[in-house]
């Protein structure tokens, strides 16, 4: 493979240049439109699966049908499918449905039914009564290199605010330090990172009877519209030193405490190609200076009708979970959200549990 597009950004950033022109001349504009065509299509079968070796290991299979683009509906889950995880030794495990269309099971390292071992190959088999049997290709678990640390870099950028005034915003960049080869591995790893953050919220103190201000921990996804990949085979170095993986704007979330969870996964060559295609597909904007979008090449097929197009991919991977706690000082001591005067009505500063995905339980990895 040649230089990965995960390293070099896509040329469509040329739009930024055009946007510069727009700023200068003030004549450009962007509108939402409807396109002329044969209409949106939904209902195509999608089978996505993953087997992640960790503590514990987790197999996760989602069976659904695509949502129509124009109708803006949701993908339809496919229920009552029979989902099996298999290994080369002939072991087979039925994966139960945990919620509509989601088939999930945790596997202990010591599981005798189907041991999850780096270097072994796995696949899934999905039987849907009205569609037949679908099977993935075999996927090998590649050992993941163990990252040493994640460092921070604060950058300031100026931009125009809604009033057209120049404003300066602070951003925090997370840089990873990691070998590219897992212990004992001969080949450098192909890596994918995903992120999740947790920030702390302290309710505003209100004098009077009661339990006093509570502390909440709010979890949110980060960088959900991007796929972050790196192919170790495309660099001559054996290590990533301070390699930029994600950036976040510093705001009130960094005011008391902030924790970034980083999941570093190793991928097979085929899985890396799949995620690379996904990365391109989601970054494509249909612009002039872009390639035409294409069909993402998956590894699921209909056992009885191999020509049938099935979307999705099953991949197996080993995962390292990294945590980077950011104290307010590191982030430049931004203002705390709830230091502001309270709002009327439902006020998250008076009831932090009203914030979606918040909990009063401190995460076990908080402060690490």
């Amino acid at each position, binding site marked *: 493979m040649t230089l990965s597009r995960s390293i070099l950004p896509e040329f469509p950033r040329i739009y930024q240049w055009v946007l510069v022109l727009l700023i200068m001349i003030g004549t450009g504009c962007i*509108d939402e439109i409807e*396109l002329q065509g044969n209409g949106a299509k939904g209902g195509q079968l999608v089978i996505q699966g993953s087997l992640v070796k960790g503590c514990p290991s987790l197999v996760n299979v989602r069976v659904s049908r*695509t949502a129509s683009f124009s109708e803006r509906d949701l993908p339809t889950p496919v229920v009552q499918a029979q989902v099996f995880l298999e290994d080369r030794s002939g072991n087979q495990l039925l994966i139960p449905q945990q919620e509509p269309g989601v088939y999930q099971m945790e596997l202990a390292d010591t599981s005798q039914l189907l041991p999850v071992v780096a270097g072994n190959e796995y696949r899934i088999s999905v039987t849907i009564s009205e569609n037949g049997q679908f099977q993935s290709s075999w996927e090998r678990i590649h050992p993941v290199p163990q990252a040493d640390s994640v460092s921070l870099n604060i950058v300031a950028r100026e931009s125009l605010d809604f009033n057209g005034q120049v404003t300066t915003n602070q951003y925090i960049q997370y840089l990873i330090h990691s070998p590219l080869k897992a212990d004992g591995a001969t080949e450098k790893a192909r890596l994918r990172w995903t992120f999740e953050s947790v920030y702390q919220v302290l309710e505003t103190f209100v004098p009077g009877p009661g339990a006093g201000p509570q502390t909440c921990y709010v979890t949110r996804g980060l960088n959900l*519209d991007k796929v972050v990949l*790196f192919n170790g085979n495309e660099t001559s170095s054996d290590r990533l030193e301070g390699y930029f993986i994600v950036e976040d704007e510093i705001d009130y979330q960094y005011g008391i405490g902030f924790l970034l969870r980083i999941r570093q996964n190793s991928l097979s060559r085929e899985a890396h190609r799949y995620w690379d295609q996904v990365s391109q597909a989601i970054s*494509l904007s249909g612009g002039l200076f872009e390639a035409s979008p294409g069909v*993402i090449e998956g590894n699921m097929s209909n056992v009885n009708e191999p020509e049938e197009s099935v979307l999705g991919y099953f991949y197996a991977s080993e995962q390292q979970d990294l945590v980077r706690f950011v104290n307010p000082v590191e982030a430049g001591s931004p203002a705390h959200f709830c230091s502001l005067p309270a709002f009327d009505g439902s006020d998250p500063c008076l009831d932090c549990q009203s914030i979606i995905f918040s909990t009063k339980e401190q995460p076990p990895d908080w402060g690490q």
Partner: protein
Amino acid sequence: MRFYYFVIFILSALPVFSQSNDSQSADPLLTHHDSTEITVSGRFEQQPVSAILKQLLQNKPISLFISDEGLLDQPKTITFSRVTLTEALADLFKDTSVGYIYYRDYALVVGPKSRINQDYGGRYYSRLTEIISQVADPDELIIGDRQSLNPFEVVTLSGQIKDDLTGGLIAGATVMLSDSGAITVTDDSGNFNIKVATGKRNLIVQYIGYDQLVKPIMVYSNDTISLALSKNVLNLDEVTIEAVADDANIESTQVGMERIDMKGINKIPVFLGEVDIEKVLLLQPGVSKVAEGSAGFNVRGGEVDQNLILLDEGLLLNSSHALGFLSTFNPDMVQSAELYKGAMPAYYGGRLSSVLDVKTRNGDFQNFKLKAGLSPIAGKLNVETPVIRDKSSISAGLRYNYADLVLKLGNTPDVRQSSSFFYDALIRYAHKITQNTNVEASFYWSNDEFRFSREFGFDYQTLMAQMSIKSQINPRWFSNLSLVANDYQSSRQELDNNIASKLDNYVRYLKLKEVLSYVVSESFKIDGGISAILYKVNPGSIAPTSETSVVVSKQLENEQGLESAIFIQAELEASANLSFSGGLRGVWYQYRGPKSVYQYTAGLPVQLENIEDTLYFDKGEIIESYYSLEPRLSFRYRLNPTESVKGGYSRTVQFINQISNFTAPTPSSVWQLSNTHIEPARAHNFSLGFFKNYAENLWETGIEGYFRTMDQLTDYKDFADLNVNDHLETELASGQGRSYGLELSIRKKRGLFNGWLSYTLSRTERQVDAINSGEWYPSNLDKTHDVSLVGIFDFNQRHSISISFNYATGRPTTAPIGSYLNEDGLVIPVYSQRNEFRTPDFHRLDLSYTIGQGYNKSKKVRTSWSFSIYNLYGRKNPYSVFFVQKPFNFPTANRFAVLGSVFPSVSFNIEIQ
């Protein structure tokens, strides 16, 4: 009756003719004598028979006509002592194949015995009598020599047109014959050549700012003359001069050709005040571009890289500034621009779909001239001056875009830290070595640079030097030898530290071309020649530009290719109504070492996994060869003086392609030579049209259909990786294409209100096995309807208002038709079949008001203004349509209009002479 055209007449009695100066009645051609009574004497030693004859008949009242000088080359020693002419001829031609005949006592015709009585029939002598009986008027200009008169010959009249006061040579003056309709234009040196039949004629010379010259002429034989025009101080009723015949659309044989009117180009509404050849091209039928602001142009469904763009003899690999908002041609330096849309002559080759032939003009050989202009985006300066008066001149043109200066005044750091500029420069030197030999040399430099903040940048530039020697070997033979060296480079920089890198590529070539033209007769001309282009291509190299960059250095091997061609093209006026222009081009292309070439397992797909070996080829070693024979043919059949039918066919082959899977390629897209795994693309082009003029050629109309098929077209697999890829062939898919359509045009050429309307109905499709299940699908360039309307209202000689309107069906695009979520909440789009959707239709109205140069042509300083409103009603035409997608949200289609509002501009030009 070709024999007639080679007859040369020599009048023998030179002293007798000298007497004709005193009295026309003494003209021996009009006085009858008994030729048999003429006595001759003389002794001749080893002299050619023709010379002996001339001397014998010197001072004799008889004319001598020799059909073939070669007959009488043989030297002879002979003595005559007061013998009759008949006796002398008998001795002279004894034991030879030469015969003779007397005509009416005053002419002796000598020629081959076998033909002397057959070929010189009554018509011949009748015509001879007619011409010699035409007495030259005192004010008539005598062309040639009556002694060389051939009654049926079409002679070549050469000459030079000058200013009567300054003596300056006038380029672009129209020279025509009132009766025959023959017409030509003086070249950069004021020279012209025109074919004219012997006898009385009226020669008319016209040029803007000068009085029309009507000169009666008496034509006998080839000659060179010099004429002077008088300048009009005030041209209240200026004559409109066309560089081509008024009915050229009916008369010319070439089908599918558009000629840009460089004089009228200033009146077309322009973008940001910049006059642009490409913008005018886009208003012609069959010419379009993917979107406003995209690079290059498309002709009859051909890709941008399928246009052969010639600047004189040098081929340009990029003709766009600022990604395509402007072309790289400085209109002030351009003499002519012609676009061949399909049936191209055989001396053009190497591209599938079209030829844009732009000729630059020489500087003034007589006077210094300076022209400068300012528009909202660029300044320009053109200077021309004689180096040696009437002998050599130099001209230089520079355009500079100053957006960079404006960016520095931006209100955001990103803008202030960005930079952008382009410039182009052309220096041209022309030297007349002799009356018939000119040497021209030029150097062209075009450069574009962009930087966006500290994130990315790209630049591209063309450096081109060329020289040509144009000579008229004799009245029938012409030669044009040219040599071109070109270096086109582009690069792209990533400025972010982690991925800081520079990606470079270039195309260099050397081109040698020789064209020999032979004018057999007024109705038959042959061009033939050879050309060779030696390419050296760097298909990509990348290197990190910071210590922390994770980018790995990589340099693809350079590639070499040699494209050699031999061609012949003939133009034949077969009859008064039927003419042909046909030719044949033979091309031998070699892909040459040094180079490593992957070998893929036979019978398996060309994929990385199927590489079984790598072969290494030494320098100069031929890795792969391709041959092509490319017939070219155009014909014209004139139904009557105002109607004609034309058709054409051409086979074209292309050996170098731009590699880009973008909807519109950028100037930074790399070029790839045909090689072992990437075969040259080939096309068949067919055209057929009907043309009709009305009101004495005031109105031109035309309808032309075309059909093009293309084989071995390069397309790209989904998610193809084209960056610095040494196995590029694994990312490509070969397919075929077809485009067909109908082009209609109506043009009013003169008058208070003039302009044109063009409409193209077309379809452009591709078929690639790996795309859309192998079904035909519309290409990115497919636009069903394309309408252009240009209206110019010249309400007086100086002031004009013009509008242009363009409408086109939206271009095909691929859109998301569905989506699904992954476990992390990532919305993954599912796209339609390739190009299943269309962007909104394009339409735009532009308006322009031009205050041209003043009436007084003799003023030293002349100014002009142009006020334009681009996109008069603020149509938000899509520069692109893109899809925005946010986490847990579904994509939406958005239209990005770069010029989505009214866009006024003003430009100012000043000319000093």
